[in-house]
């Protein structure tokens, strides 16, 4: 527990550059991460739209892009996946909102290591620049998918985009790993050392628990990916053979021998599966926070929620092999990975149960953040329940590498996580920018996005059951795909509408930033520490004093209390627990 929290490490900067560009303030850095993710999500979304257009109008010549060739399509999907996973789903919920609100929610003046924090943002930015540069080098962006399976990713002659573009892809990810490791260290230290007086671990908001466990996952996972990426670079450029055995590409014997393609898969998924939870855990935290606030009811089973987050974090490292049931890995180990994967469904189910329990006998206020939190629960259920199909090795025989998988992970770690980001945006925007977002636009955004995402991703399950392989740029070659083209068309139309409505969100975001009605310090009548301070918070978060915490994070509708919420800093009275 910190005793030095009253001493703020650095004074408020005066110049523009130190204030807004190379800032040490966690709030500014959080917003920088958020805007980086916003740019990235529009790039990623644009790429997905091009893919969807190409799938149903394969010969269309598009403005700016021209004709989409099979290799272009694969570059689009590679970059879409990579950008979305790293620069959106890892960046916005954890580095963005986590950076801004973790210190405030625990009552700290800043992150533990402000300079490290600034560095991790700018290194992430550098990684993004390197990733985008892959589009513009000769040969273009790589086509090996976001999973980068070797030997395809290790052999420059294996396809267009596998030359400099693939090098940039690996380098960008390696840089990103370095930044994420720094961020993870910072989060962990901050949470452990800088909590305000009275902020015991079991008084932490569930968002903080989620950010904390996510940081631990990041610390353990990104190091492995970094090493794997360096080995891949060596294979690609220095002729080593970590991942490549003796292979013949188009009649040419390559110089490698003895490497193991499965090694890359093990290393990649040892990172890749925890990464799924890195993307979704902060969303779970936000959903819990928002549901409790707008249900005006304590979160159902707070401790169960904490233990569930921990269990998900722990088990998340023991399930990576479920991506590899068809890989040639021992069929016996599939047993173990499969049982572990089913086991991780249990804490996920506990969380769902507790969210429903929170809504039961509540008094629900339907503001935009709440709508997205409810949408999150719905999508989490829908995306989660296809998990027990894919967790069974025997069902991976028909389903692995089909659209069923694409539908599954888009619903849960894609859209559900994005709904978490939306809920967080609508919820915390007033605190961050001092103004309210437009409620009507928020509602329009919610309804069309909810229906639209279901319309895009639910049909993918049907395609997958019918045996539609993923990552096919044209649907003309396999005869049994012809009957499925109308489903693809439907999904593309749904994508047009859903993507279109996101511009309403962006308009609302920027318009409200300047023109929205002024926000009070606690517009949602919420209980956690960020709502006890000024809007927007001063440079040291609490204006020279340190909060003292007397209550748990979700004390709503406490019997006998003067109003329907007890803030964490409220004095102890007989009525409150």
């Amino acid at each position: 527990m910190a005793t030095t929290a009253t001493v703020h490490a650095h004074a408020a900067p005066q110049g523009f550059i130190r204030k807004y560009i190379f800032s040490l303030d966690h709030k500014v850095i959080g917003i920088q991460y958020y805007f980086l993710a916003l740019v990235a999500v529009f790039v990623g979304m644009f790429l997905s739209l091009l893919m969807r257009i190409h799938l149903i109008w394969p010969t269309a010549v598009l403005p700016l892009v021209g004709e989409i060739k099979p290799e272009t399509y694969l570059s689009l999907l590679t970059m879409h996946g990579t950008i979305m996973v790293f620069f959106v789903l890892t960046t916005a919920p954890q580095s963005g909102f986590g950076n801004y609100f973790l210190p405030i929610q625990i009552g700290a003046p800043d992150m533990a290591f402000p300079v490290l924090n600034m560095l991790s943002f700018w290194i992430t930015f550098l990684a993004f620049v390197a990733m985008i540069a892959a589009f513009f080098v000769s040969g273009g962006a790589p086509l090996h998918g976001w999973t980068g399976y070797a030997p395809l990713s290790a052999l420059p002659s294996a396809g267009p985009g596998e030359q400099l573009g693939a090098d940039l892809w690996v380098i960008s990810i390696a840089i990103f790993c370095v930044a994420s490791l720094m961020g993870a260290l910072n989060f962990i230290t901050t949470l452990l050392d800088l909590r305000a007086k009275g902020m015991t671990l079991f008084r932490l908001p569930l968002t903080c628990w989620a950010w904390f466990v996510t940081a631990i996952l990041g610390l353990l996972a990104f190091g492995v990916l970094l090493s794997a990426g360096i080995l891949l670079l060596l294979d690609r450029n220095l002729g080593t053979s970590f991942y490549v055995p003796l292979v013949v590409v188009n009649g040419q014997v390559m110089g490698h021998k003895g490497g193991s393609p499965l090694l890359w898969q093990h290393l990649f998924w040892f990172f890749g599966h925890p990464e799924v939870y890195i993307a979704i855990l902060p969303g779970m935290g936000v959903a819990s926070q928002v549901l409790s606030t707008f249900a005006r009811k304590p979160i159902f089973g707070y401790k169960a929620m904490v233990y569930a987050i921990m269990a998900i974090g722990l088990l998340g490292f023991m399930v990576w092999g479920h991506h590899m049931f068809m890989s040639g890995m021992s069929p016996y180990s599939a047993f173990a990975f499969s049982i572990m994967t089913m086991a991780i469904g249990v804490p996920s189910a506990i969380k769902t149960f507790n969210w429903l329990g929170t809504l039961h006998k509540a008094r629900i206020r339907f503001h935009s953040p709440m709508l997205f939190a409810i949408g999150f629960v719905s999508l989490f259920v829908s995306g989660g329940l296809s998990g027990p199909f894919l967790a069974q090795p025997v069902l991976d025989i028909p389903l692995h590498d089909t659209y069923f998988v694409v539908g599954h992970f888009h619903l849960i770690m894609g859209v559900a996580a994005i709904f978490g980001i939306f809920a967080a945006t609508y919820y915390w925007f007033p605190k961050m920018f001092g103004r309210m977002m437009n409620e009507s636009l928020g509602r329009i955004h919610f309804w069309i996005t909810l229906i639209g995402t279901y319309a895009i991703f639910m049909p993918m399950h049907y395609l997958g059951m019918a045996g539609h392989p993923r990552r096919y740029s044209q649907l003309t070659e396999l005869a049994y795909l012809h009957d499925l083209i109308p489903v693809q068309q439907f999904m593309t139309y749904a994508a047009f509408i859903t993507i279109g409505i996101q511009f309403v969100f962006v308009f609302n975001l920027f318009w409200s930033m300047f023109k929205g009605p002024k926000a009070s310090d606690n517009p949602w009548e919420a209980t956690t520490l960020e709502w006890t301070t000024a809007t927007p918070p001063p440079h040291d978060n609490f204006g020279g004093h340190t909060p003292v915490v007397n209550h748990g994070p979700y004390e709503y509708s406490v019997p006998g209390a003067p109003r329907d919420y007890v803030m964490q800093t409220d004095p102890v009275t007989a009525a409150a627990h």
Partner: protein
Amino acid sequence: MGLALLVVIWLITFFSTYFFAAKTWWLPHGASTSAPWIDHQFGLTYIAMGVVFVAAQGALGLFAWQYRDRGSASKVEYSHGNTKMEVLWTALTAILFIGLNLMGSKVWADERFEPAKADAVPVEVTGMQFAWYFRYPGPDGKFGGTNPKLVDPSAGNEAAIGLDTSDPAAKDDVVAGTMYLPVNREVNLTLRAQDVIHSFFVPSMRFKQDAVPGLAIHMHFTPIETGDYEIACAELCGLGHYKMHGMLKVVSQDDFDKWLASREAEKQ
């Protein structure tokens, strides 16, 4: 707003479930011995998950409407949870998930733990950018050697896999671009890949297995209906991934013998 949520969530649930339940799109027709087992396990999982799906979405929609803020008419139950319910729910989920898993395990074990029977038809499958080749060992029952230096993809068949014709065991090996199998006999597969990872996917046989460079992966299945079945590649392998397909022709034992004999004759 609560009512709108109820209606929309329930409608989404209804339409999602309808297309599953009506089997508008479903697993392709199964034509191997393992298809009924796999499909049964799929059906079981589908029913279990379907029930949970409808129950959870149903409750979510219902609660959103039932517990909307109705001013002073709303009474909030101040509660931090219910440990008994929590334990019950956890136990039920664990039993359901682990139980499903164990039920599926037997099918998996039958598929993957046992080697092929002694009388199975040996076939070696080689994946390369962007074609499948199928090799039959010929009358001697032995696959001859291959040599990476001899690989010539443009020449196709024997040359494409680099068959070393100086090896006596290789002389009677037949390599084809279409897979022929006799019906009701197990096939003993050896899966190889020349350049990058491919995945040998025959939806109607409920068969999928990656072919990995550097590995010879042994698998087996038994077709039980004659007919033509499409083979796809299910692992991203490069720009021609979408067109890396082949055809499996399941024929009678007689027709299979005739086909193989005619291919042997062509080689002489």
